[in-house]
């Protein structure tokens, strides 16, 4: 049978004008006229976009009015409703034609049943099923959450010029001198960083709100929300994070559990930070351009995943370092060489990423043997990409 001479009549639902027009052309063109779009009252079949908000209620309403009309649903997910023929997006012509065929068969059966029931006098049963809307979540918009500006603020992107003043350095140590690489390391446990990491670990493991007491401003840790509260600005935090406190404050630092009531005291919303962003900064300031002692500088390092850079302090070349390390493990010196940057930028990035558990070190011999080329293949549009980068970094 030439379907284009006897096309199926379909009504479209959940599609705005432009998309509906495209659908009309699609049925005429790629689907070779197997169906034609008509008004709801004339249609034999309903075609829904099953992924738009409110589709469940709309489909319920239509199926209550037309319980025997077949439904074709264009959907991102596999369908579950009986008597609905699902076509997975992006819509493929063969799938669409298959669904239209199924609708024709279904219609034939319905008509046959109606004819038999007319003869026997039995009414046709409704097959309406409840269609849950798969795409709606309900939210109570928390205004307080949106006012936590420090937690949600966009990342600060440091350039080389301001790096040393912002991150600091260690007197008598040139971290960029390959001869001094072996000693260009630091132990996070000697710094506030080590205590923050330890308190975060305890708080997360126990699922309890904790307070880190250090003789300085206390840090309140809310593990369920992945955030901390600290009554100090970045300048104060930077100064404290850069101090070796192992010999002076270690005995005075403690972590105590807080009751929900005491932790719920009125707190300034702009002093909430995400735990990750906070620890990242603290690690940068403890590092001062060095790498953590747990890293073997002679062995390749790999990156497990990209840091969430839009919510972190971005040190110079951090994005480039991530893009390179995500491709495969390299030694820190090799990263600096390939990218032609000072090793201190690699070291400080690794310190922060290591604190967040985003890096690992290849310990097996086979990992160490992974070829580390001194060059990377340049993109054919390198010049153009560079001009976009200049514009973005303006």
């Amino acid at each position, binding site marked *: 049978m030439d379907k284009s001479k006897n096309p199926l009549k379909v009504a479209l*639902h*959940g*599609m*705005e*004008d*432009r*998309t509906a027009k*495209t659908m009309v052309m*699609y049925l005429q063109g790629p689907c070779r006229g197997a169906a034609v779009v008509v008004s709801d009252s004339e249609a034999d079949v309903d075609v829904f*976009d099953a*992924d*738009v*908000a*409110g589709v469940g209620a*709309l489909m319920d309403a239509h199926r209550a009015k037309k319980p025997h009309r077949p439904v074709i649903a264009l959907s*991102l*997910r596999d369908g579950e409703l009986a008597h609905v023929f699902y076509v997975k*997006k*992006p*819509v493929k012509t063969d799938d669409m034609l298959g669904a239209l065929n199924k609708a024709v068969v279904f219609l034939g059966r319905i008509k046959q049943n109606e004819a038999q029931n007319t003869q026997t006098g039995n009414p046709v049963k409704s097959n309406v099923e409840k269609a849950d809307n*798969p*795409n709606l*979540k309900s*939210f109570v918009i928390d205004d307080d959450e*949106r006012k936590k500006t420090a937690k*949600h603020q*966009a*990342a600060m*992107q440091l350039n*080389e010029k301001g790096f040393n003043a912002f991150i600091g350095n260690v007197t008598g140590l040139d971290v960029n001198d390959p001869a001094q690489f072996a000693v260009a390391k630091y132990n996070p446990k000697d710094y506030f960083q080590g205590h923050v990491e330890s308190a975060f670990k305890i708080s997360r493991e126990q699922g309890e709100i904790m307070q880190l007491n250090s003789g300085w401003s206390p840090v309140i840790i809310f593990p369920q929300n992945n955030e901390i509260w600290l009554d100090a600005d970045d300048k104060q935090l930077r100064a404290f994070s850069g101090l070796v406190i192992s010999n002076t404050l270690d005995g005075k630092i403690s972590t105590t559990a807080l009751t929900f009531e005491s932790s719920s005291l009125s707190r300034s919303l702009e002093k909430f930070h995400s735990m990750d962003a906070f620890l990242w900064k603290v690690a940068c300031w403890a590092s001062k351009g060095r790498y953590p002692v747990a890293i073997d500088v002679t062995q390749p390092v790999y990156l*497990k*995943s*990209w840091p*969430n*850079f*839009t*919510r972190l302090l971005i040190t*110079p070349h951090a*994005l*480039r370092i*991530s*893009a390179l390390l*995500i491709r495969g493990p390299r030694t820190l010196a090799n990263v600096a060489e*390939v*990218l032609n940057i000072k090793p201190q930028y690699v070291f400080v990035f690794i310190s922060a990423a290591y604190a967040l558990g985003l890096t690992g070190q290849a310990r097996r011999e086979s990992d160490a043997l992974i070829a580390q080329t001194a060059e*990377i293949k*340049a*993109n054919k*549009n*390198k010049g*153009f*990409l*560079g*001009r*976009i*980068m*200049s*514009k*973005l*970094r303006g």
Partner: protein
Amino acid sequence: MSQYKIIFTGPVGAGKTTAINSISDLPPIKTDAAASDMTKSKKSATTVAMDYGVMNLPGGEKLHLYGTPGQERFDFMWDILVTGGIGLVLLLDNTRADPFVDMKFFLDAFDKFIGDTAVAVGVTQMDVSAKPTIEDYQVQLGGMGLKLPVFAVDARVRNDVSILIQSLLYSLDPGLEE
């Protein structure tokens, strides 16, 4: 002079129009229309064709920014759209019931294009719905054998969109200089 473009894609309401608006040098040409009853609960207007913006570069060159229609029905339109594209920005709405389904859908749909170029993923609405977390997205991607830049993004904030695009460019070539 060559014409280069970056494609912004993602489900309806993910912030594609807003993101292009954030970094375009010209007011973006929008093709929004009043949303139908179906989409009203998500946003008051929806993009029915494609958004367009432009970044003017030194030397008179231009980077074109195209946003795909929010409704993701027809794969044949995307083939036309990606021709000449240098990379893909995928924006996902964290308030959707299952943003991982969206992510997989768009990554599958643009699979060939991504294979030839690169992709960066921005997750919007995280201040409304904190979960799934960025780490959750990375776990999902890991299961697909992918390690992509995935960042929390406020599409209204130029810096967020800029960092997302920078990660895309460095994914294409880490050797690009700052």
